[in-house]
């Protein structure tokens, strides 16, 4: 349309009612027309430049339920992922499952002495929240308030172990509350020292997160607009005062705000701005209930307390997009980034889309097969084929595990969805961890006990069975296998059952939807299930493998494992010795044929080709952890 208009204007200028044009007039008119055309062209160009997407649209499987994911009921991955770009603290977790110190925000150092174990967290000067209020160590104090049970009781806020507190916090009840003795604030208010009774494993994961306490204080006063600089300063001073005097009434008021006022799913211009005070590269601009949240670059705090974002302006989360809808939404350029589990069909569909790159690879969730040796925690007396710690039971279990066609499984079921899949030989370190995995599996025993070729393993299993159950051909051992009743598990179980049948086990595949509540059901002799790994912790999976642990559902009783676990649960160890203990545990598990790791779950991340810098991480926040490196 524009072009037609333009031609029309041009025509009317040149051919002006039969008037003969002299050169001068023509030149003048051409100039005018040229200018207009130039302006229009510029308009188009500028417009195009504006439309160039510096926006990234990604999906979350569930909608936002609240802005404060430290509140017990609000502890959803979505909530923490959406809010992640709005905050910086002492560290962030990267895609190698390591904590990366964020020195732009602050630093910490630890000291052990006769009075205990002290960790000093120092906030870097000259940082502000996005309302202009300076950030200092007073902003770290709320973390103690919502994690220390003793403080809660002392301040008259209620006993968290009894379930009633002013702050409905997820932080109570853990190691922090058991170990913390006191907090010391430096004179310049820039350093907070946490005093623990002794050093403990993974203490560095307990850094206090900053929280805009002045905003909380103003909210508790019933304010609905941002305070002036002086008012914010006064509010912060008041908070510190309340903290030092343990003012019950004030903290009850603040607790109510902290636990309920942030639980909003709609954010717009009428939202109380005090709820949105933040210090991240982005700030929350708007949220539409059940549909989306939009974050925009925060001109005040971007690059101040953490890495600076330079290439994108906007992050939009869309909620509730089904895995099956995502490929076409990607193809239609409605979303730029999608991560999830994938089926072979889904992967084929994704591969057919032109404008995306695929990062198909394993997730940290891994599959394992576990055998029952006893009834867990006094559930009852288990009398199945694998019961007990005798040599005979161990060898029977071994024959069973030897006959698992681990290679065939990868070949037939996993490779179509993950071209890099390999047989998993550890439950602690994953093949995707690279060199660490290679050195780790040299000593963890899985390869030692189950590393032979399938033919060799079957031969060994057959000879074991000939010895243990001479009449296995006519009277095979019956095993009930528990697994979730989804397509992959069913296919998996059938594949295994065929192999087991060759060495004298008749396996009934017990696929059921409520499998997880059936793991202590003594009817089942074995189980196929998956574990997801988070940020590595020293205690590892002792919670599931120790004899007396409430979560040891398969009933393994093994003093050697318990001994290693008691060390791991004690003082902090260096990585090398941690590895040694973990390897020792895995070795025991393999030697006694309790369990065997099978494979890592296949996952996929689809990224629009224009979007660069995305490095999917196996732990929350999976995709968005390095948003400052993105460009689109």
């Amino acid at each position, binding site marked *: *349309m524009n072009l037609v208009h333009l031609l029309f204007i041009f025509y009317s200028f040149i051919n002006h009612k039969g008037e003969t044009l002299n050169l001068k007039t023509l030149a003048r008119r051409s100039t005018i027309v040229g200018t207009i055309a130039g302006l229009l062209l510029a308009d188009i160009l500028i*417009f195009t430049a*504006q*439309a160039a*997407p510096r*926006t990234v*649209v990604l999906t979350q499987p569930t*909608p936002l*339920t609240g802005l404060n994911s430290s509140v*017990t*009921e*609000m*502890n*959803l991955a979505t909530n923490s992922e959406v809010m992640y770009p709005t905050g910086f603290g002492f560290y962030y977790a990267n895609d190698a499952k390591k904590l990366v110190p964020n020195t732009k925000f602050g630093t910490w150092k630890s000291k052990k002495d006769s009075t205990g174990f002290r960790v000093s967290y120092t906030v870097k000067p000259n940082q502000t929240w996005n309302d202009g209020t300076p950030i200092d160590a007073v902003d770290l104090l709320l973390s103690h308030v919502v994690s220390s049970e003793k403080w809660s009781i002392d301040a008259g806020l209620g006993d968290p172990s009894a*379930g009633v507190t002013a702050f*409905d916090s*997820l*932080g*109570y*009840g*853990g*190691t922090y509350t058991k170990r913390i003795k006191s907090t010391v604030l430096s004179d310049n208010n820039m350093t907070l020292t946490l005093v623990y009774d002794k050093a403990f494993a993974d203490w560095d994961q307990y850094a206090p997160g900053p929280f805009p306490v002045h905003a909380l204080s103003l909210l508790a006063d019933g304010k609905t607009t941002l305070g002036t600089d002086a008012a914010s300063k006064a509010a912060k001073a008041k908070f510190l005062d309340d903290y030092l005097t343990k003012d019950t009434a004030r903290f009850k008021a603040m607790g109510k705000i902290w636990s309920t006022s942030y*639980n909003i*799913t709609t954010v717009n211009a009428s939202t109380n701005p005090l709820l949105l005070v933040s210090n991240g590269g982005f700030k929350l601009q708007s949220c*539409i*209930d*059940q*549909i*989306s949240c*939009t974050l925009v670059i925060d001109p005040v705090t971007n690059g101040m307390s953490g890495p600076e974002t330079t290439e994108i302006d906007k992050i*939009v989360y*869309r*909620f*509730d*997009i*089904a895995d*099956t*809808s995502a490929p*076409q*939404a990607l*193809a*239609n*350029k*409605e979303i730029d980034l999608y991560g999830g589990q994938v089926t072979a069909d889904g992967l084929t569909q994704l591969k057919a889309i032109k404008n995306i790159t695929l990062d198909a690879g394993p997730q940290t969730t891994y599959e394992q097969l576990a055998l029952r040796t006893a009834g867990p925690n006094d559930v009852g007396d288990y009398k199945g084929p694998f019961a007990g710690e005798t040599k005979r039971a161990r060898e029977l279990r071994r024959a069973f595990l030897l006959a698992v066609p681990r290679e065939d499984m990868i070949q037939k079921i996993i490779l179509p969805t993950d071209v890099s899949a390999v047989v998993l030989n550890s439950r602690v370190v994953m093949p995707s961890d690279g060199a660490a995995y290679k050195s780790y599996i040299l000593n963890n025993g899985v390869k030692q006990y189950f590393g032979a070729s399938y033919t060799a393993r079957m031969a060994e299993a057959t000879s074991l069975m000939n010895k243990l159950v001479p009449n296995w051909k006519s009277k095979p051992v019956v095993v009930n296998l528990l697994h979730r009743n989804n397509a992959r598990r069913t296919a998996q179980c059938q594949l295994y059952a065929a192999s087991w049948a060759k060495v004298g086990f008749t396996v009934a595949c017990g696929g059921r*939807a*409520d499998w*997880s*509540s059936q*793991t202590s059901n003594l009817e089942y002799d074995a189980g196929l299930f998956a574990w997801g790994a*988070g940020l590595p912790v020293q205690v590892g999976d002792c*919670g*599931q493998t120790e004899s007396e*642990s*409430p*979560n040891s*559902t398969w009933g393994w009783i093994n003093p050697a494992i318990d001994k290693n676990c008691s060390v791991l649960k004690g003082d902090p160890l260096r990585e090398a010795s941690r590895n040694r203990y973990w390897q020792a545990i895995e070795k025991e598990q393999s030697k006694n044929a309790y369990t065997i790791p099978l494979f890592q779950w296949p996952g996929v991340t689809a990224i629009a080709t224009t979007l660069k810098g995305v490095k999917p991480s196996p732990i929350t926040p999976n995709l968005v952890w390095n948003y400052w490196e993105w460009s689109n």
Partner: protein
Amino acid sequence: MLAFIGRRIGTLFVILFGSSFILYNLTAISGDPREQYKFATDEKSQSALRALVRQLDLETPPPLRYFKWLEGVLGVFYGKLNFGVTRDNEDVISRLSAAIPTTLKLVTAATLTAIFLGIALGMVTAIRQYSRFDYVVTFFSFLMFSLPIFWVAVLLKQFLAIEFNDFLEVGYIDIGWRILIAAFTAVFWAGVIGGSKNRIAKVALSAFILTFGILTAIVALKWFYDPGLGPIVVFILSVGIAFAVTAISMGLDNRPALKSSLSIALITLILYYPLQYVFDKYSSWLLILALAVLTISTATLISVLFAKIDRGAVIRTSVITSIGCGLVVILDRLLSTWSEYLTLDGVNGRPIPTIGQMNPLLTTDDFWLVQLDTVVHLILPTVALTLISFAGYIRFTRGTMLEVLNQDYIRTARAKGLSERVVVVRHAFRNTMIPITTIIVVDISGVIGGAIITERVFGWSGMGTLFNKAISGYDLNLLMGVFAVTATLAVLANLVADLLYAALDPRIRVGNRL
């Protein structure tokens, strides 16, 4: 009559009580909301587990918990309705009140289209039983009926959204595609039109040429980038509507009806530009409502002026015409917003989305842009739902209509020399509508329950999504909330259907039943 309604409402409460009690307890037995924490040993999960038990009152046995729930629900009678909280600690009522409008938005257009198309096609296929048209429609409707919606959705997303948007980026339809589309249209019309081979050939050929011509013209004129009907096309369409409505409802030889309908078309033309001004200046739903009232009253006034006898029927005719003309004007206004919508930052030249109920990247709050955004998000789900659901209406209407047409009173009507239009519209159609009405009422009540799969595949979060979420998360309160709404509506709809049946069919008296 009143006694009947009273009795029925009494039964309704008994049914709702019984079914909710059974459902509550069965659901509570079937799964444990605590399941996801079963293996978790970390401190956070333990804390979350404690909170979940506290918040959902899981330590009370389900049968007792049901009565606590019932107490909250019975609060509806004294203004303190309480459906409890979901497992994410959100108020179930707030979730329901957010989901119901979304669902209504999603299914209303589709349901109305399906009913309208289904009844119209059903009538025509019955009147022309065993014709080629009958076979073609039956074939297509059964084909669509048998397709699963998730598959239809994938196809629609591919062709109506992705490929269409790609086409807009290029702005050119391949000549091969144009020929293919034209050929398909030709085959369709050849199937629909009866008559001699010569006539069929002519129809097919003209359909082919016309389609090909229109497609070429659209490509050449870049109509897709700046569509719009303009006053002339709006007028032509209005005249068309006036003739069609009059022809069906009164017959073209009824001069007053034709005159008043045509006047409405004329008024539409005269008011075209003033309306554009009003639309630009003061757009809101209130304005649309006011205009609708104004339109209908004008239509009534005009008919009163033109008609001396049979006023009611003439008024009805012109009101229907005026609504049709109004819709055309609104369509024109929406189409003229298109070019602006296309260039919006969040749309970027790809207007048809595959997911969602609105574009979250949109920053404008211009009335027409927002409405157009809703419309483009409705296109795919509406087409999908209509395609798969109108077959039922076609078949039911056809069957009922055939039965009615074989009745003695139809033969009598024909025998006494009534025109075929009068026989069909006044005698056959009305009697056909009696059973259909009752079906429609029940269907509409079911609509609130949400289209679970449709909502899922198109990324809408209405009642279907809530239901799905409630089941997969063992979220008992949420499930019961959805159930309470749908079950109440279902029972009420059955009551309304019975009453309507009695009202429409004088042979039936409700008081004598039950």
